[in-house]
Structures are given as structure tokens and as C-alpha cells.
């Protein structure tokens, strides 16, 4: 192997769990910055420990514990820059990474959109570190997994498959312009699918929080089991436009995807759903129902995100859609400068303001509709309208005359979050959701929406 010799030492320089404290990370990064011979250097350090356990068919299948960190070095010479990452933190290893980033940067063509590194910044204080998560051991993870396995086994006609991952993380940046930021966090995520052994029913539930103690394993297990049983023997219904009640997970699955479409530059360039015909963007226009307010805020108690971007730009509360009006699009630092706008980070953490309708009220007020637990395999079909396709999964139910009457076969939709949020009828309480395909800190309410576009039936359970 072409691995550097310096790695094969005899003693271990790496701390248990591969975490670095604020001061350790700062000292390490200062050393990196001092090594630089380039005009500019920005270094990022991230890592931590994750423990995971996976189970299926009522037995534990795989489980692991992983310690890892990486150093990311960006060197710049005027408008030229390049990035090198390494997991080798030996003195020779980090020097090699710095020199290599310098060598590549010198050879790289000019980047006319290169932005100067930021000077020191002030960041908000977000506490996303919980000792209960950081000190977990394999025995505790196994016990948590067994809450679902034991319940499914005891039932006799159910198979549980699930995944628990919990761990620590740190992220730090420094530059030769004096910038420094550090953010430690913990995270615990639990997702569970319970299937009935006759193969006709499947139910899903999940929970996510930085604090392990906030994950109610029994409640997740009860919910998935209830959904699995209730979803047995689904009937076929005609695809078409239906009133739907989307649980928070399903709303998050679809609406989070707006993050990929809210880019200011694409809109200005005429290749976005937010470009206006004839030129310009739709900022300031009412684009969805007035009950919709969508924002990012790392300090929000339900979000608890990192309060800065990878470039070191502070992140605060950014409102994207307020009472249905598009307030702003996402501006990179370069595009903001060009358009005389403010750079505003992205939608890494995103929350939709909830309402006070209960799911029971939504069901009771629905003569005919469909309740959806979650969505699956969402893929963009047409960027001009943010049109996505995907399917319902793990708990899809028919509502007739204000009651859930039976389970229905899963359905494929072709729908845009923009169209859907225009057809909004009722808004429920916002919850942190656990299983979106893009991940991240995501908080959404239950929604009742009319005319949701289902285009075909699926036999999949």
C-alpha cells in the first residue's frame, strides 16, 4: 500500500472516541495554519465516535463502533485554490496535506468567483451536546434494540427491523484571517419498521434527538406495531387527486426538498421554479398558502443546529417563506456580493411553523381522503416546477366520512411541494422528524392538503 510510513508508529496518538475538545482542536488548527506558505489557508477539522446497531427479522444483524476524524485544508494563491483532506494527523501527515493543497492550488486555473476568507466572526451559542448520548455503551444500545425485538417476538406474527445510531461529533474551522469556530454535538436516531409475517402489513416509526434520553424506544415500537397491524390486507383504490393528511415525516420528506430549489443564483439565471417569466425572481410574491412559514434557525430548541456555515459565516434565524410570501432565496457569498444581497447560508436545518389542529380533527373533517405515514424514493422529475415523484410507504390508510376505515395499497405521486403548499387546509403541531432521505435537523407539522396527485398504484407492502 502507498500509505505513508509515519502512520505505522508504535504508540497511539489518537484519543479514545476520536473527539477533540475546543482547546485541543484550536491548538491543532493553529499548528496547521502556521504551516501554511500560501496566501491564504482555511482548515476544517471534524470527527467523533458513532455506535450503531441494526436488527431485522427479530434478530440483531450487524453492529459497530467507529472512531474517525478528518482534516480538510484549503490553500489559496490569489484566485487559485484547492482542497486536500486527510485522516493522517501525524506531523508528517498534516504537513503533507498542507503542501499538497498548496501544490495543487498553484496549478489550478483561476477561480474568478473566489471570495476572500472571512475575518473573525461572532457566533450564537447552541448547546447540542448531551452526556447521556456521549457516554452510551454497546449494552445500552442492545437493550434499546431489544425493546422492539422482544415486543415483535412476543406478538408472534410480527417481524421487527430497525436501526439505532448514536454518537459524538465535533466540527472546527480556523484560517489565517483569525477566524475560529468550534461546535460539539451529539445525536441519536432510531428508525423502526415492523412487518406482519403474512407479508400484507408494514408500519414505520422513528425518533431523533441530540439527547438519547429524549428517544422513547417503547413509544416508537408501539407506534410501528400499531401501524403494521392496521395496515394489513390493503385494498386497491383508483389513483387520482385526493385530500391527504400527511404526518410530519411525510411532510418533511417532500417539503425539505425545497432546499435544493431555493438557490438565488439559479433563479436569477432563469433555471429555477423561482425564476420569473420575462426575467427576475419571485421574491416578494405569494407563492404558497398564507398558513405557510418556513425558516432556519440553529438556535431553535427543536432544531439545535450548527450556528455557522463551512466557510465560517454565522447562521441565525432566516425566514424563507413567511405567511406564504417568498421572503428570500439562498445567497452564496459570491452571488450576494454580485447582487448586492446578504449571504444567508442555506436550509441545512429547516422548520415549518406549526398550527393547532390535531390529527383527529383533520380526520374527522375529511369525507374522503388518505392518511400518509411517510414517503419514499423521492426524485425530481421537473426542476421547472420542483415536481417530484415518489411513493407512500409503511402505513397508508383510507379515510371515509371522518374515520379511518381501512388500509390502502401504496400509491405513487407526481407532486410539487409548491403545489401542495398551495392546497393547504389544516396545519398541526410541528415535530422533529427522524427519517428524511436527505437527513439533517428537520421539523414539520402534520398537514391536511387537498388535490394531492397520485398517479399509479403499487403492490409493494
Amino acid at each position, binding site marked *: 500500500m502507498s500509505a505513508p510510513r509515519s502512520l505505522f508508529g508504535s504508540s497511539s496518538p489518537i484519543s479514545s472516541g476520536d473527539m477533540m475538545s475546543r482547546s485541543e482542536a484550536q491548538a491543532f488548527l493553529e499548528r496547521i495554519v502556521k504551516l501554511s506558505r500560501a496566501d491564504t489557508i482555511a482548515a476544517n477539522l471534524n470527527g467523533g465516535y458513532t455506535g*450503531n446497531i441494526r436488527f431485522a427479522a427479530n434478530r440483531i444483524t450487524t*453492529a459497530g463502533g467507529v472512531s474517525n476524524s478528518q482534516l480538510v485544508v484549503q490553500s489559496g494563491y490569489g484566485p487559485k485554490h484547492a482542497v486536500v483532506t486527510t485522516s493522517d494527523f501525524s506531523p508528517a501527515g498534516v504537513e503533507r496535506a498542507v503542501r499538497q493543497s498548496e501544490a495543487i492550488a498553484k496549478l489550478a486555473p*483561476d477561480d474568478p468567483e473566489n471570495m476572500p476568507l472571512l475575518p473573525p466572526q461572532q457566533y450564537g451559542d447552541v448547546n447540542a451536546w448531551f452526556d447521556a448520548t456521549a457516554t452510551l455503551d454497546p449494552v445500552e444500545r442492545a437493550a434499546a434494540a431489544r425493546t422492539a425485538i422482544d415486543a415483535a417476538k412476543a406478538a408472534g406474527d410480527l417481524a421487527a427491523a430497525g436501526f439505532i445510531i448514536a454518537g459524538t461529533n465535533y466540527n472546527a474551522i480556523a484560517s489565517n484571517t483569525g477566524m475560529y469556530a468550534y461546535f460539539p454535538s451529539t445525536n441519536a436516531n432510531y428508525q423502526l419498521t415492523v412487518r406482519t409475517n403474512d407479508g400484507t402489513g408494514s408500519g414505520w416509526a422513528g425518533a431523533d434527538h441530540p439527547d438519547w434520553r429524549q428517544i422513547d424506544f417503547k413509544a416508537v415500537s408501539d407506534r410501528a406495531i400499531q401501524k403494521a397491524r392496521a395496515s394489513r390486507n390493503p385494498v386497491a383504490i383508483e389513483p387520482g387527486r385526493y385530500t391527504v393528511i400527511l404526518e410530519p415525516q411525510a411532510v418533511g420528506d417532500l417539503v425539505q426538498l425545497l432546499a435544493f430549489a431555493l438557490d438565488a443564483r439559479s433563479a436569477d439565471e432563469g433555471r429555477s421554479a423561482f425564476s420569473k417569466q420575462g426575467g427576475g425572481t419571485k421574491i416578494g410574491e405569494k407563492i404558497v398558502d398564507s398558513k405557510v412559514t418556513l425558516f432556519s434557525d440553529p438556535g431553535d430548541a427543536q432544531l439545535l443546529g450548527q450556528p455557522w456555515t463551512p466557510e465560517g459565516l454565522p447562521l441565525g434565524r432566516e425566514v424563507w417563506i413567511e405567511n406564504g410570501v417568498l421572503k428570500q432565496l439562498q445567497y452564496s457569498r459570491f452571488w450576494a456580493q454580485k447582487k448586492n444581497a446578504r449571504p444567508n447560508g442555506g436550509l441545512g436545518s429547516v422548520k415549518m411553523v406549526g398550527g393547532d389542529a390535531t390529527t383527529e380533527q383533520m380526520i374527522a373533517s375529511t369525507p374522503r381522503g388518505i392518511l400518509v405515514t411517510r414517503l419514499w424514493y423521492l426524485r425530481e422529475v421537473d426542476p421547472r416546477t420542483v415536481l417530484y415523484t415518489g411513493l407512500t410507504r409503511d402505513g397508508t390508510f383510507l379515510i371515509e366520512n371522518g374515520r379511518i376505515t381501512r388500509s390502502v395499497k401504496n400509491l*405513487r405521486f407526481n407532486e410539487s411541494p409548491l403545489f401542495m403548499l398551495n392546497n393547504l387546509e389544516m396545519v398541526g403541531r410541528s415535530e422533529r422528524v427522524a427519517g428524511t432521505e436527505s437527513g439533517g435537523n428537520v421539523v414539520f407539522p402534520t398537514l391536511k392538503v387537498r388535490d394531492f396527485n397520485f398517479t399509479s398504484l403499487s403492490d409493494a407492502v
Partner: protein
Amino acid sequence: MTSRRDFLKTATAVGAAALATPALSRAETLARRAAPNEPAAMDPATKELLLEALDAAKLGGAEFADARIGRYRNNFVITREQQIVNVVDTDSLGVGVRVLVSGTWGFGASRDLTKAGVVAATKEALAIARANALPAADRVRLAPATPTPDGRYVTPHTIDPFTVPIEQKADLLIRANAEAMKVAGVKFVNSNMFFVKEEKNYANTDGTFTTQTVIRSWLPFAATAVAPDFSDFQTRTNVIQPMARGYEYLVAARPVEHARQWGEEAAAKLKAKAVEVGRYDLVLHPSHLWLTIHESIAHPTELDRAMGYEANYAGTSFLAPPREKLGTFRYGPAIMNIQGDRSQEGGCSTIGWDDDGVKPDEFLIIKNGIVNDYQTTREQAPMLDWWYTKQKRPVRSHGCSHSDSWNDVQFQRMPNVSLLPGEKDLGWDDLIAATDRGIAIVGDGSFSIDQQRYNAQFGGQLFYEIKGGRIVGQLKDVAYQMRTPDFWNSMDMIGGRKSYEMGASFFDGKGQPGQVNAVSHGCVPSRFRNVNVINTGRKA
């Protein structure tokens, strides 16, 4: 599924002829390294650390263990229009140790490549296995595998992409971008190069030691045309397939020479006619069909899915239980033969030995239209012992164990899964000529399929209306919806050997924590009868 975190998806035909004679510039010739394909023996220091892990595992009570020390490198050159966006080199090195204690797996991983670090990772794996101890009936049983004491493999390649100077890579991209930008209406081009080099060392307690170097190359390219009044925009992308080849492959794909055509195809989509919904015969090009094979054949024939092991994420399979499907389920017509292998040259899943230490074999997953086998690992092969015994075949793994890095545990991943050519010497034009009313589709686009792989919807890159055996015009807003067994049973014509091409993804996603796998799918142009086509265009 293919992962959302994919960079930009890619596809389409780089003709086999273009690959045969790479036209190298002088500088590129200079970048060649002498005999890069000569596999070296395992580095002694690496072997010593691997043995350290295996000894610690045995001492800790493991009945089986394996250890992997790997170096995983990526190189990206990212451009748009006439400028560079970024140049990125990533390098990750570490050890992953897997132990089996009383039939229960445990896994530990660390980037600490000292003896103490490797032993600590092994102890972590042992502690996890003990905490998760399985009841006797649930314990893991491994199929036997012949030990390989000194396995060596290198991806066949001419130029190691990691030796090619950055400015040379950037120059090729910028020149290609310029050609596409010459087309009226084309306002934006995004292109990049993406290279992978994996140096993988493996040892297990059966006595297998392998050292392998895998190289993969890809050039994602997207040209976007915008209508002058901002009323429409269209993109042509997925033009060059990823492959397990060196830099010579991207040079031979001749992006500069083809870019204008890609730009013209983007601009032409602005003027294409919106499709009328209805049922059509579809003639699917290999640059498109590979993805349909990936989603609707390769995934449902993964044995872990069929056994319910992926129920919580990627999903299960309609092709289950295996006892009711093997030897009886008609997936498609008799002309349909689907092969699994990790041996096709250039295939992204091609390798010498898998991450169980098994030499993969070539096997027919679907034989004359009937389900014949599943993709397996050493843990999974015994689940089909009844079938292999009936077939008078040994109970052995097909070599489908894979981990995407040193820090993820290996599990069943896809080999190259390919539709074998038909006996008749037919090609793309023959299939179109034989079709009265249909749509020909080139390149892969939007894709989505349910968790049991029944209901799928696929878009594409270029859509052509066929009338009376001829292409009469271009269409847009086309997607087809299908139910897997109905769709494959509607296949009535396939191309011959000369029309065989491979498509691939760098980002097949599966597992928790999520892992990606690069995989290729070879296929021939094929015709499907009476498929449901929808129009995806809407008004904003």
C-alpha cells in the same frame, strides 16, 4: 436505490470503438506510468497490523474474524462554463475489524494504525458482539471459502488518474464546456472529473490475505439551455458512463469533440413536442436501460432484501420468499438472461476478491426468463442450501460482500448485473425499424421505485417519437410507469452482442449506516410493448 447524495448522475454511450484507441496527447502519454497494472505484494507493515487484529480477535474468543486496512482516495476537478469551481483531493486511511463471537457479529473501526489502535478497534468489535449475543437459533453460519494466501488485483488501466496534472484535467473540461457554449441557447455548463482509488488490504482467520487496487473514472457533464423569455429551461446530462478504468477512458470518450452535440441536444429539448399520455412501445438504449435493470432486477435479487434484512431502509423484495420463486418465477421472456459477475473489464463492481475474502464467480440470476439465483455473501449462501443441493451446485458465496470504506462493515452489495445479448445480430436501428408506434429513449433521467421493487417511474435524457419504423421527431416531458414483472414480460426484442454497452452508478445506496457502492450494468437495446407513458410537464 441510487443515492440522493450522488454528485450528478451520468450515463450514455461512449461507443466501444472510441475506447479501443485512446487518442493521447503528448502530455498525457508522458503521464503514463510504467506497468501500473503489475500487482505488488501486500506491504509487510500492513500485514503485520492485520495479523495483530486477527490475533487479538482469536484471543478474545472470536470463531472467525477479518480485518481490512484501506486507503480510499478521491480526486475532483469541478468546473462551470469557462471557470474552475474547485479542486479537491480526499484521502482516508484506517482499519476495520469484524469478529464473529458465538455466531454474533461485532465491528470496530479506527484511523489509528498503530498496534494499540488496531487492538483497540478489535476489542471494541468483541465487546459489541458480546453485548449483542444471539440466541442459538439465530447464530450466523458462514459458507466455506477456499483460502487465498496471496491474492493480488489491480484494475486494468493505462493511466493512473492520480498521476495526471490538475491543469491538464481542467483544460479538458474547460475546452469541452466552451464547445457546448457555442450552441445558441446554451447558457450554462457544469462539468467535472471524479476519480476513485482504493487500496484495500484484507486478511481473515481462514488464512486469506489479499491486496487490491481499484481505480474508477467519471466525467459528469451537464449543458443547460434557457428559453430567451425564461419560460423554459432544459438540460442534457448523463453523457459519459462511469467505469473502472484509468484516465485514458475519459480521454477516449472525447468530451471536447462531443460537447457541441450535447449542447445541441439541450437546445433541441426546448423545441421538442410535449408527449401525449398513453401506451407506447418503448425502444430503450443501453445508456438508459442500465438504470432500469439496476432498480428493477439488480435490487430485488439481493438476497438480504428478499430475507427482510433491509426492511427498515432500502426495503424488501417482491421476489420473496426465495423458496417460492427459485426455479419457478417467470421474470421475463425466454430471451431474458441476467448475469451477476464481478469480472467484466471496466465494470465498476469488478474486483479480484470480495470483502469476505471470496473470489466472485459468474452466475445466472435469471435463466431463460426464470429466476435462477440471488446475490449472496458467505453469511447468506447457506440460506439457499436447499436450492443449491437440488441444483447439484456447491453451497458457496457468489462473492458479493463489500464495504465502501474501512470504517463501514461489509455486507451484501451488488455485483455487475447485466442483460446478456440475444442470439440475433440486432442493433438500435433494427429495433426502431421494427416498431410502428413508439418512443425511443436515450440516457437515464429521473428514477424512482417502491421498496419492494414493483412500481417504478423512469424519465430519460432524449426522447424520440417512432412512427412506421422511423424517428419522426423529438419529444419532451416523458416518463414511463411500470410494474416490474409486467414490464419485463413485455420485452420482445433485444439487441445482439455488437450492441452491448455498460452503464453505471458511483452511488448505489443501501444499508444503515448508509453506504454507497459503484456498480455497472451491461445491456443491449431492447423493446418493451405497450408501456404506460405520462407527461410530467406542469405550469409553475
